[in-house]
């Protein structure tokens, strides 16, 4: 890690480490700051929380949210759960894969775009739904879906 990255990490740790059960909040903040959980951050997080690297690693690998590698610049998380399935999200998924040229669960070769599954955004009466980076989108069919693809590729 570079010096300024270490400083960022240490600032997060200084701010958060005293909270009870601080590991998840810290990992969220680290991921927010770095886009993922750098391998080298784990020993420092462990030290700050009086944990071992193994414990932190166990937590990082348990939760789907925490990435161990940098994310694509644009991540589309398409809901693959039942309520969206009932609203034909299979077709939406197929169109997204085809339109974006990325298979679900993978990223484009240049790392610009990733299409990932997510399981329920609580938009179950408005499906198919997705998160584009942090922004929710729903009723992803027809024109709205095409607009999403066009914007993603832009």
């Amino acid at each position, binding site marked *: 890690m570079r010096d300024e990255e270490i400083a960022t990490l240490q600032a997060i740790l200084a701010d958060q480490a005293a909270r009870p059960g601080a590991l998840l909040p810290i990992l969220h903040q680290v991921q927010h700051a770095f886009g993922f959980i750098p391998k080298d951050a*784990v020993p420092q997080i462990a030290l700050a929380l009086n944990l071992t690297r193994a414990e932190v690693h166990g937590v990082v690998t348990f939760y789907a949210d925490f990435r161990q590698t940098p994310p694509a610049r644009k991540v589309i998380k398409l809901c693959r759960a039942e309520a969206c399935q009932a609203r034909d999200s299979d077709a939406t998924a197929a169109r997204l894969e085809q339109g974006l040229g990325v298979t679900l669960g993978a990223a484009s070769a240049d790392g610009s775009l990733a299409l990932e599954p997510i399981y329920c955004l609580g938009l179950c009466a408005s499906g198919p739904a997705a998160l584009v980076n942090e922004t929710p989108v729903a009723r992803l069919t027809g024109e709205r879906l095409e607009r999403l693809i066009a914007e993603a590729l832009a």
Partner: protein
Amino acid sequence: MSLITEKDFGTPASVATETVTLTIDGQAVTVPAGASIMRAAGQMGTQIPKLCATDMLDAFGSCRLCLVEIEGRAGTPASCTTPVANGMVVATQTPKLAKLRKGVMELYISDHPLDCLTCAANGDCELQDMAGAVGLREVRYGYQGHNHLNAATDASNPYFTYDPAKCIVCSRCVRACEDVQGTFALTIAGRGFGSRVSPGQSELFLGSECVSCGACVQACPTATLTETKVIEIGQPEHSAITTCAYCGVGCTFKAEMRGEELVRMVPYKDGKANRGHSCVKGRFAWGYATHRERVLEPMIRASTDDPWTVVSWDEAISHTASEFRRIQAKYGKDSVGGITSSRCTNEETFLVQKLIRAAFHNNNVDTCARVCHSPTGYGLKTTFGASAGTQDFDSVEHCDVMLVMGANPTDAHPVFASRMKKRLRQGAKLIVIDPRRIDLVRSAHIRADHHLALKPGTNVAMLDAIAHVIVTEGLVNETYVRERCDLEDFQHWAAFVARPENSPEALEAVTGVAAQSVRAAARLYATGGNAAIYYGLGVTEHSQGSTTVMAIANLAMATGNIGRPGVGVNPLRGQNNVQGACDMGSFPHELSGYRHISDEGARNLFGADWGVTLDADPGLRIPNMLDAAIEGEFKGIYIQGEDILQSDPNTKHVAAGLAAMECVVVQDLFLNETANLAHVFLPGSTFLEKDGTFTNAERRIQRVRRVMSPRNGYADWEVTQMLARALGYPMDYQHPSQIMDEIARLTPSFAGVSYDRLDALGSIQWPCNETAPEGTPLMHMERFVRGLGRFVVTEYVPTDEKVGPRFPLLLTTGRILSQYNVGAQTRRTENAAWHEEDLLEIHPHDAEERGVKSGDWVKLASRAGETALRAKITDRVAPGVVYTTFHHPLTQANVITTDFSDWATNCPEYKVTAVQVSRGNGPVDWQISYAEKASRSRRIEATS
């Protein structure tokens, strides 16, 4: 002999006193409340199938094999996680359960290799057993699905392999690493079907935080974690219960054998000191017993410049005897002596001191406790009346405040450290007094409430400051003091510590510790509930070692922390039998059971039994023997199992002493460093090769059992006996039990000890006599052994070893987990993987000042000598303090240490040496020539 197997009840025993009666499979059973259904069933002989449960660990409930049905309750709860209740009616075997268990097992086996016949665990595999128990016959899922069968094996650890293909993800290893060992080196990485055991960050075991204690291997129910030796040799077929020969914890092991070959050492759950746990040394580092460098035949030589000549035992013994007779005839009877070994059994130690007193006719006997815990003996005898720790290890479970001083338990007493850490995780408070930031100060889930990082050599000042706070802030337990202690002594002491010059503020400049930290720690110790002091050589190995021990005793008495569970004064003994060696009369002024040699009654008792007249004056202590040798008055020594050249301070002085002698007899496993200056070498036997007893730090006498015949031909006690006979003194023991009978006959505190009773009870803590036929776990319960506890004034006297412009830093020494003492054993095992060389720890500030970077060679010099080693830059040590270990002869930290010693016992001041550190280019001259000289000295002349 057969293989000893221990029943696994699945969940730990409940400590509840009230009981519960329930019905299991139609049979009523009464068990302690809080027990699991599984344990209750086990108690009546019903083994409910299980995989994730083991009685070393709290119930986890993951394998779902132990499901039962309970009348009136829905579903099929797990018997491991369900506590018993009065009137509960449980069925452990129903068609529904049978089907469920088979269903679960079918899932397990669908992701498991089908290689039972060629698997190392074949015959010792719980998965295999359970597959049989539930009657699994086929796996209908086939083997084409997702699986882990191609996962790569991790063989990075020299002692065990990790084969994830065989893992059933029961988490027993992870839980053992956490709950039993307290290291938290393992986790489950990933989740769901992808879950796998992971050391560190999904890395190799060797590079992870793993300390190789073996708890995970022990816990594993399959061949996933398996001892490499089991893979190489095969499953063991017979075993014996014995006691570890490493540190003073005294772990009980099952030595598991195949023929005459040791396959593995397995910690014994019923071992009262270790409760089924182990460390990397006892569990794995026994390969030295068969190391190629072990010397198996006696050897002699006329001069230390000569090569060794291999001779018969008869010749070696008669040569030795004639040499000692010649020397005594020429220089007088006091010109010879001997050193007993803390590594040998009580019986062997007793015999050596008997040899010296009865056959050498003098009291020139000493033991390696001289250089470690002799101040403990003096200090605790003076204050409490008994030269030993007050508690048993179990006591820690009742402790609320731990004060750890001058000890590094996670490295030096790892198995007990795990119990300490467990108690700390349960909420006990911790005060550490140590110049160095030992692991206990801060490690996973452990954080000391106070770390008083004092300057080396200021222990007494620190304890006086703590006492000052206790006395002046009204924290003395006055009722206790009034009832249990000598009041006049107390008042004298209280007035002394209350003096302004003993306040934390006044002593701040001396100790280097902020007064408010000292005050806070003192308050915690005095008011935090059950407070126990654990200490090590950082207390004793000082010019005021004995004073420090007495200062510790004062604190415990003043706060009423002696005489019940959870409190006490607990010296953590270094070597396996250092307590025993002291008990057995190894000191020149004491007979067994700590009776002074001037005590006519005691002397006559021995004299009558041994048929000799004993000298009433104390003999020479080790440093005195060496001094006398240099003076030309001491000419012959018999050293059993100790490497004084490497272990004793001021190596040059030791070497000069040995060189001045005419007959140095070394009895050891290897040609150690001392043997380079010896004239007779008598091969020693390992603890695996003999019967006997060791006494651990909690005064626990435990059996050592012979599992293989001595490779050198004789157990050490037999050699001593041969030597006695050759000197004309009759000894005719057929078995060590007869020696123990003699010890019991002559030693009141051992009066009730015999091998029969040891076999019956497992172990006995002395005193064991008519009033305490089963031994004494806790001492000084109603009254102190000496009657009233005695407070002793402990004035701080700075050591003469002072820093100055030439030697501005203070060196302190210690050991690390993987190595033991001078390393003679551990260096001859795979433990070298963790510690290839001694390193000098130096603070970044001091390093920078000297232009030293991590890994650089540095020259370490004191007024006694100099050596070179590599530097490790760390803030574990404070600025001004450097630290190293003394495990390697090529570093020989004791070249640096001085001959300052404890005022009362001459215990050397290892822990404080003024030194200078400078950048170096590599080993210094003597180190380069030492290797060559040593190998010259180790030449063995080919037998014609």
